[in-house]
């Protein structure tokens, strides 16, 4: 069985691409009965282009509007030609053809009026970008320059120069002088160009190309297309590597670990499956229910890594604008999520891959942009240079697709800003859904109120904070003393206690002493809400495990008009000492019982992200709200954007 090679033929519209393809197919035996088209007069050329432009519009416009596949065979290989249009308008269609090709044949006309024009350059640049290798460059219409070697050399020199300019390796590029209409040097040597000692096009093809090595030696990457919960079955595609029954497998971003059970390929049970195969396999895992379409599986040695941000190179193939802040549907593998263009780091011209502008605000038709993409949810993508299959994507908006490749991913696996949610009896029925929302990092219990059953809370596997009120006046429904609360925290193995009204380092040391005496691991959050705390900020910060700014009480103590100023300072100190900082009170009150928060709240969330606050504390938003999940969704929407804008990972 001959191996198949995918070829695309690129070049300027009028340089004879369609004629070339027609001739190639004819010589390989695909087209017969030359006489049908042969015109009686001597010297009239055969119009092979008509074979390919099947639709009347295309014949009339003399342009191929879409790609069509053609096949031919040589002694060595089976070739699939994806005929690409030459006109700039149809770069989108050209991309679809190029996207499947392993090799390209470039056609450039030697006719003095033509030669290397804008389209030729654009196509070469795009080929280089997408990693399609040039098999051979055909210099066509040699008859228009009298078959002169000198003219041929002029064209090859210019081409080599441009290829070097855009960064291609030109050492192995083959140039063949041809006349497509007469079939010279395509499959048979031309008698009119004795000075040319190289191979014909078909000769070069068979010599140069190599079928793509199967990516079996690479680390396993299997993309989940479909899951069946009852049978614990995953249906998907192996993009790289080997899937072996019995091996441990790790799925991200679901974060599920399991063991590979029975594997089925093409309806048969097998022990191993390889890159390129469509598989169905059982995954033995307790957390199977978390697996979903879009997850990527890999083995322990090279686990797939989810990320929230990536740097990508995006092509704008047609009349459309891409702006900073625009949100797209991001499609890669079986993933379909949302991504925001956080930044256009560089704008590049598609004509010659040269730099145009830094920090651009938008990209237009024909531009290529190096962009920072912020994903709404974690996904697995990889560098295009390592893995073509997991490194390429489409950004989609209203049926327009912008292709791109991933240049770099980030190691970041968590969100920059997280949420600490206050829990009350009113929250309990929503808790299941609430903890599934992204960014929900900790649950907080206010010691001034009746305490919940901590055993239930612990089931959610999130850190718990117990707030110790400190001021007797603040007691509401519970009269438990501070000391008692601390003991409860130790006993219930709470993760953090929040000390209110911290005024000195000594208070904190006393608490630490109790914790240590009980050999407990409870950590201490110092709540900054007093004048004194501000005076001793450095010392307190150093002594605490984490800081929390309670703006309500701080405002009462120092004056509400000063709070924003102090917030900034306190955050800076926390960063200086490397401590995490949380901000509380009225973060997003306007998300309660409404579809839209106030501009003030939206702005303040952007501000806190900009300042680098680690946690936003939600009090009433989750404790006194009939629909806390909705509020958190609104908050997440705002934080997604804010992080995209201000966070450099």
């Amino acid at each position, binding site marked *: *069985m001959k191996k*198949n090679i995918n070829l695309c033929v690129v070049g300027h519209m009028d340089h004879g691409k369609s004629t070339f393809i027609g001739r190639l197919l*004819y*010589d*390989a*035996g*695909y*087209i*017969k*009965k*030359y006489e*049908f*088209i042969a*015109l009686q007069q001597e010297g009239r050329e055969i*119009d092979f282009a*008509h*074979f390919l432009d*099947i639709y009347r519009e295309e014949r009339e416009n003399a342009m191929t*509007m*879409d790609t*069509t*596949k053609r*096949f*031919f*065979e040589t002694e060595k290989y*089976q070739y699939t030609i994806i005929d690409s249009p030459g006109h700039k308008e149809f770069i*989108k*269609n050209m*991309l*679809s053809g190029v*996207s*499947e090709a392993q090799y390209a044949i470039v056609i450039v006309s030697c006719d003095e009026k033509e030669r290397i024009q804008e389209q030729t350059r654009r196509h070469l640049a795009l080929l280089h970008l997408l990693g399609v290798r040039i098999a051979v460059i055909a210099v066509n219409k040699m008859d228009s320059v009298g078959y002169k070697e000198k003219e041929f050399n002029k064209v090859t020199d210019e081409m080599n120069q441009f290829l070097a300019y855009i960064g291609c390796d030109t050492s192995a590029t083959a140039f063949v002088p041809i006349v497509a209409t007469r*079939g010279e040097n395509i499959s048979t040597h031309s008698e009119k160009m004795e000075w040319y000692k190289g191979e014909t096009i078909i000769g070069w093809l068979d010599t140069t190309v190599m079928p793509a090595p199967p990516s079996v030696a690479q680390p396993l990457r299997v993309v989940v*297309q*479909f899951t069946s919960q009852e049978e614990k*079955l995953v*249906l*998907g*595609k192996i993009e790289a590597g080997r899937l072996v029954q019995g091996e441990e497998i790790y799925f991200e971003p679901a974060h599920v670990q399991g063991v590979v059970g029975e594997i*089925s390929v*093409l*309806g048969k049970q097998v022990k191993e499956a390889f890159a*390129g*195969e*469509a598989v*169905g396999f059982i995954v033995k895992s307790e957390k199977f229910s978390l697996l979903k*379409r879009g997850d990527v599986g890999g083995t322990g040695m090279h686990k797939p890594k989810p990320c929230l941000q990536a740097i990508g190179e995006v092509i704008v193939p047609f009349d459309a604008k891409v702006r900073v802040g625009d949100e797209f549907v991001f*499609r*890669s*593998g*079986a993933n379909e999520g949302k991504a925001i263009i956080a930044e256009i780091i560089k704008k590049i011209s598609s004509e010659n891959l040269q730099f145009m502008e830094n920090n651009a605000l938008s990209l237009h038709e024909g531009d290529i942009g190096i962009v920072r993409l912020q994903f709404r949810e974690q996904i697995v993508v990889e560098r295009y240079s390592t893995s073509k299959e997991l490194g*390429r994507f*489409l950004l989609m908006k209203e*049926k*327009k*697709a912008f*292709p791109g490749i991933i240049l770099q991913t980030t190691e970041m696996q968590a969100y920059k800003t997280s949420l600490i949610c206050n829990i009350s009896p009113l929250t309990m029925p929503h808790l299941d859904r609430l903890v599934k929302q992204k960014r929900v990092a900790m649950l907080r219990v206010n010691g001034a109120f009746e305490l919940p059953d901590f055993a239930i809370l612990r089931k959610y596997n999130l850190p718990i904070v117990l707030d110790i009120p400190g001021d007797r006046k603040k007691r509401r429904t519970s009269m438990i003393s501070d000391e008692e609360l601390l003991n409860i925290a130790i006993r219930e193995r709470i993760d953090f206690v929040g000390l209110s009204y911290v005024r000195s380092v000594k208070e904190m040391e006393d608490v630490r002493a109790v914790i240590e005496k009980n050999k407990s691991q409870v950590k201490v959050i110092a709540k900054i809400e007093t004048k004194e705390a501000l005076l001793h900020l450095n010392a307190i910060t150093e002594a605490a495990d984490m800081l929390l700014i309670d703006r309500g009480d701080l405002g009462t103590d120092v004056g509400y008009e000063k709070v924003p100023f102090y917030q900034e300072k306190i955050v800076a100190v926390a960063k200086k000492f490397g401590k995490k900082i949380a901000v509380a009170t009225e973060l997003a009150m306007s998300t309660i019982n409404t579809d839209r928060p106030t501009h003030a709240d939206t702005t303040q969330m952007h501000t806190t992200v900009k300042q680098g606050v680690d946690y936003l504390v939600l009090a009433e938003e989750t404790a006194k709200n009939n629909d806390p999940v909705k509020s958190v969704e609104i908050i997440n929407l705002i934080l997604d954007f804010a992080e995209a804008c201000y966070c450099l990972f």
Partner: protein
Amino acid sequence: MEGKKQINFVEANLEELENKSLYVIREAAAQFKNIGILWSMGKDATTMLWMIRKAFLGKIPFTVLHVDTGHKFKEMYAMRDRYAKEWGLKLVVEQAEFVEDPDKHRERCGEIKANALRAAIQKHKFDAIFVGIRRDEHVLRTKERFFSPRDKEFKWDYKEQPVEMWGLLNNTLEEGEHMRIHPLLDWNELDLWRYIKKENIPINELYLSKGGYRYRSLGCVPCTRPVPSEAKDVDEIIAELRTTEFSERSGRLSAREQTEVMQKLRALGYF
């Protein structure tokens, strides 16, 4: 100068083709909620059904739809009922308008079938349908995609359709549209028969030669004509496809032969 040798079909690697088709089938299952499989009991549709069964490890979790014009060959009805039982298919039969006079039926067959399909889509609320068409069947098919939307009138704008790159198939549907899923698009006629032989897929005996004739396609009785052939089994059909020219086998010209003829007509001044 004559071409070196005549190649009728390029023989693709069947496993590669099959893997791609299974991928397309699974992509469809994951992205659409209520998919129907259009089954005519012909070789293409049955092969597609066979592959869907493989994709879901022996099950067919979709409704199978037969649009019945009342004029099918009786052997096809028998085949339908037998395999519906054997494979445990969720089969629905949509009765199309029955026009008793075969000539009158033939005139309107396409329209009758389209009306019935439209009704079935509405009745069962399908958002996607598996259809077993191939690119090499017809000139117009070369522009098809794996996922191809159709509006209520079954119209399709082949110029405006988005590209399908990198295995990312079109999945956007407008209001009132349904998606046609074409898993067999890259298969040619020879690939199909080679696969049928390899897998031993049940095909109707009408495809095999009797008395010097066999059916290349099995539509309705009044609309289908047998062609001259001596191929009595699948091996012989495969040999026939490899060696005899397209137009001899079927009477219908291939896409490229059609363009040759039209080119001729043009040169002769017919248009």
